[in-house]
């Protein structure tokens, strides 16, 4: 870690190497896929529960479509911004694991 003159400490950030990019890409891919599936299943289950409660069949597919839409919207939001891949989950631009003191 290097320091500037006023006693504050700056961190140097290096570019991710090939293996890191590969691991990041792999985990991102499967995370996106898991979001798609779990959006479908979660809101499908909620819709099915509602359908059971009101004795109707239609909330189940409606819930599934809604969940699909929600998950796709979230994926676009989470991964559709500049530098989204390198950000941590808090979306604040903290670069995960790419600092020099690791």
């Amino acid at each position, binding site marked *: 870690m290097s320091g500037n003159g006023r006693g504050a400490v700056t961190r140097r950030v290096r570019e991710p190497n090939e293996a890191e990019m590969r691991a990041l890409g792999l985990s991102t891919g499967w995370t996106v896929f898991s979001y798609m599936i779990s959006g479908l299943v979660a809101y499908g289950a909620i819709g099915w529960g509602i359908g059971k409660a009101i004795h109707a069949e239609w909330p189940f597919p409606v819930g599934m479509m809604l969940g699909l839409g929600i998950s796709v919207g979230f994926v676009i939001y989470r*991964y559709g911004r500049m530098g989204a*891949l390198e950000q941590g989950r808090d979306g604040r631009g903290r670069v995960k694991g790419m600092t020099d003191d690791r």
Partner: protein
Amino acid sequence: MSALATAAPVVYQLNFGALGYGLAAIGPGIGIGLVFGHAIEAMARQPEATARISLYMWIGFSLTEILALLGLVVPFIFHAA
């Protein structure tokens, strides 16, 4: 039993929902292949743009995948209940 099943003289227990999903997965399969193929080519041409390219790659993937997942949902929508 659906009309198709009653009309066919020899029909085994065909699950049309599963058949429908199988057919519905053809298009998104090709589409996802295209998305990733072009993304890989773009990353190979310009490695420094990898991060930006992969952003759009994941968005494209999710939008294409939604069509395949809709194939899972549609049998329930058109369920003759």
